[in-house]
């Protein structure tokens, strides 16, 4: 059997080299699929068709399996995120402290349901299962930064600041 040669990088975007690095570190083994997808998502912000195809081909994983993995795990996103992301934790402790009201207020303010991005691409509204900071519930992540004991007003202020940027 001829030695396997990984496919060429999709473009000369430097981020592909980082992705390729993860795969090389794992010897292009199939089990590196999730690891590699993590790298793609952290480099590009989301997973598009091209990147899934590239990773699947490089790791010799059937495309169906790669796509199946991407859609199975909540962490992976197939849509590009907005410029800013408001993630509201909806774990049990946050739920008990009224996080559903935060979600409703944010949805109303932005005019989009959770999991979507505003039309101008400015703000994404996401929910998380639990970020493990239950001692400070209710918790939100503003662009990944954890903010505890969040009130509706504080959150709307933040959204307002982002919206006018």
């Amino acid at each position, binding site marked *: 059997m001829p030695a396997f040669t990984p496919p060429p990088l999709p473009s000369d975007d430097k981020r592909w080299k980082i992705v390729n690095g993860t795969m090389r570190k794992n010897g292009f083994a199939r089990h590196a699929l999730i690891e590699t997808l993590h790298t793609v998502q952290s480099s590009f912000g989301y997973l598009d068709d091209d990147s899934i195809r590239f990773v699947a081909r490089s790791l010799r994983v059937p495309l169906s399996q790669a796509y199946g993995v991407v859609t199975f795990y909540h962490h992976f996103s197939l849509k590009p995120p907005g410029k800013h992301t408001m993630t509201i934790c909806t774990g*049990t402790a946050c739920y008990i402290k009224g996080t559903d009201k935060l979600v409703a207020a944010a949805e109303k303010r932005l005019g989009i349901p959770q999991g979507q991005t505003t039309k101008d691409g400015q703000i994404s509204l996401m929910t998380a299962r*639990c970020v493990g*900071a239950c001692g*400070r519930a209710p918790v939100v992540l503003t662009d990944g930064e954890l903010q505890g004991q969040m009130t509706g007003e504080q959150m709307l202020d933040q959204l307002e600041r982002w919206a006018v940027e």
Partner: protein
Amino acid sequence: MTIEELDQIAESVHAENAKFDHEINVCMGTGCLSQHSDKLRDELTNVVAASGKKAFVRRTGCMGLCAAGPLVLVDPEETLYQHVNAAHAEAVVASLGGEPIAALQCNLREHFDQQVHVVLENSGHIDPEKIDDYIARDGYQALVKALTEMSPNEVIQQITESGLRGRGGGGYPTGLKWGTVAKASGDLKYVICNGDEGDPGAFMDRSVLESDPQRVLEGMCIAAYAVGASKGYVYVRAEYPLAVARLTNCLRDARRRGLLGNNICNTPFSFDVEIRLGAGAFVCGEETALIASIEGKRGTPKPRPPYPAVSGLWGKPTLINNVETFANIAPIIRKGGKWFACMGSERSKGTKVFALTGKITNTGLVEVPMGISLRQIIEGIGGGVPDGHTFKAVQTGGPSGGCLPTELLDIGVSYDALLKVGAMMGSGGMIVMDDTSCMVNVARFFIEFCMTESCGKCIPCRAGTAQMHTLLTRICAGHGTMADLDLLVDLCGTIKETSLCGLGQTAPNPVLSTLKYFKNEYIDHIVHKRCAAGVCNIEAPSAVEPPPTTTASLEVLA
């Protein structure tokens, strides 16, 4: 590395610390960091340098009392300050050696005095990113002792003797599990640390990994030696970036010190560990699903047997334990199984870390001996329900557990006692609810969680939880009938008995326990169209009369 070398490192750390009159420990766990304790530490360092006082500012892991963060502990006085921010730095440094600042001091003796710290013994006292700090507190003594003085069998014997049971929730005897993997044939075996802490409301694994990662690694190394494994994986949630960073750092340091890698402590034993990131799937906490995820596949569980102990990762014998289980190993080997077995209740030994959250004054992490009553934890250590509200229920075990009412607060916390009353130890989340929580809505919340997290492999879980969710939503909206309750009970039974894995088998627990202890709230919603807590949006009763309540349907519930 030998015991003498470890002692030398410990001595040099102690000598270094002795140069300072005071140690200022700043909590830099996720909770306090979210309140900018990093800036506080920088400020303290600057102020100390400017003041010329002989004080040392240390970054530490979680001190437990997240409600009062950012926390600062001044040693050797053991003065604990709460809600400290960068503006207080001058005052804190000025008070060193004098009277403590009364306005900032945290006086919660009863909160700390009732706790027994085994897993958390180093949390808040060491810098989690310095391996030498861990070694200075008896770290790696257990590993060296196991490798140089004990046979693998003797290690397993000590663990069995300790009576330690799996801290991930199942409560399977750890010694027995290790024994099975050790006996399994095969030259390649794996050890996996399950840090996929999916239970919403539980954060003890995150905290242990952030505050004392070396302890978990030492536990894994000892386990690998005992069962004959050469490769390990730590599976951590991607939602815990700080834990991943500290763990990465911890592995690098251990390799440098020769405590991980080839020929550890100049013995034939070789072991290395890799980190695998979860990608946000609750079901991956189930061991066979976790294994599938490490193999790079969708995290769907497999029927057992074969158990992972016989055929696990890539078909090889695999030992899977929870973070907290591994964190208990080093002290057991150091002090002996009998020491551990002295703590706790008859069939649940040792201590357990609980994440106390919800409507409770002192939210945070607590570690208590098994057998302590729920009341002691909630009213004593937790400080009770704040803001003049009354206690309604405590939820243990996350989406697999149950809601327990006031009447059951006096039961002792142990695997068996909690199972008996329809709840579960789970990984240790304890969520307190007051009179502003509607128990029907709580049940719906958990079922919604299980519904979205069901992997979809088996029908009872995939379709059953969806049906239960529909029924509960209907009841919450005031459109339920008493017949719906019968159907709900029936569904619960089917899902429990026929689901493939633990997720489905335990998914009905929150519903069954609320039906058992808070039946009146369901009836309120159905018959009186009323939500006493005011959580559910019940529409105004329509002109149609509610269906009559039959005694038959009530009997089913009784």
